[in-house]
């Protein structure tokens, strides 16, 4: 009886270990923060890309429409890949794109925009990366979808693809 009890405990323990390791193997080892709840956009003040004027977040997101906040840099290769898709998205009248130029040289960033086109209604400068932290980003490119209530409802880590564009279009419809 006692041996059976010990065996049962041992089997339970081994099953427990197996489940833990099995689940662990299936999980990705790299963590990427997710947006579980709608978060309000951060309150900030940032320098405009085309002028030396500082804009407050309330003035940037003042219209009653959806906004896309896209973090990009001229030195970021994946940003080039997603740029044509952003250009396509910018044709949509019910959404405005705000660009956050991340830790970039102003000249290089301007060359990038001149070469590939400007999908953004406004570009803000994030020279030290702290503005991106306020948005909860940890790399570049990252894209945030902001709803009419000025809440971040979706986050795309890495370059956006056609699937992401379709998803955005479906949400803003």
């Amino acid at each position, binding site marked *: 009886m006692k041996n059976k009890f010990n065996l049962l405990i041992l089997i339970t323990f081994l099953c427990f270990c197996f489940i833990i390791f099995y689940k662990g193997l299936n999980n990705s*080892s*790299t*963590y*990427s*923060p*997710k947006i579980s709840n709608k*978060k309000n956009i951060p309150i900030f003040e940032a320098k405009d890309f085309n002028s030396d004027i500082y804009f407050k977040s309330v003035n940037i997101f003042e219209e009653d429409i959806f906004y896309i906040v896209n973090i990009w840099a001229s030195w970021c290769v994946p940003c080039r890949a997603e740029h044509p898709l952003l250009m396509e998205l910018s044709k949509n009248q019910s959404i405005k794109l705000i660009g956050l130029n991340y*830790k970039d040289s102003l000249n290089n960033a301007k060359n990038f925009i001149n070469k590939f086109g400007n999908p953004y209604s406004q570009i803000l400068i994030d020279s*030290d*990366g*702290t503005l*991106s*932290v*306020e*948005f*909860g980003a*940890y*790399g*570049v490119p990252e894209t945030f979808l902001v709803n009419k209530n000025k809440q971040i409802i979706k986050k795309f880590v890495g370059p956006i693809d056609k699937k992401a564009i379709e998803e955005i279009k479906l949400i803003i419809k």
Partner: protein
Amino acid sequence: MKILKLFIIVILFMGFSHSKSDEKNIELKNKILKNIRCLVCQGQSVYDSESEFASSIKLIVDRKINENLREEQIYEFLREKYGDWIIYDPQLNKNTYILWLLPLLLFLFGGVIIFKKLNNQK
């Protein structure tokens, strides 16, 4: 002359107290940075990391300390942005109950087994 001496003493005292608070802030900053996980190079703390993300977080922590935010408030700010994972020291909540309670349960379970064995030997 007396006024000049007094003035020098006050200046020295102010300088000393200022450097003392600077030292305290640096200590607090290092403590916080060692407890934040770098999300880009995930085996390292922000303190050890040289990534772009880590350098931005270092600036943010510095700014928050200068705004007189407490250590817990800075952790809360980062948790709100990136989730519990960013802090090395996890909080006790519904996602971490097992993490916190399992070692305690195993300890108690082992204690009971040892106690029973000792009782049986007697």
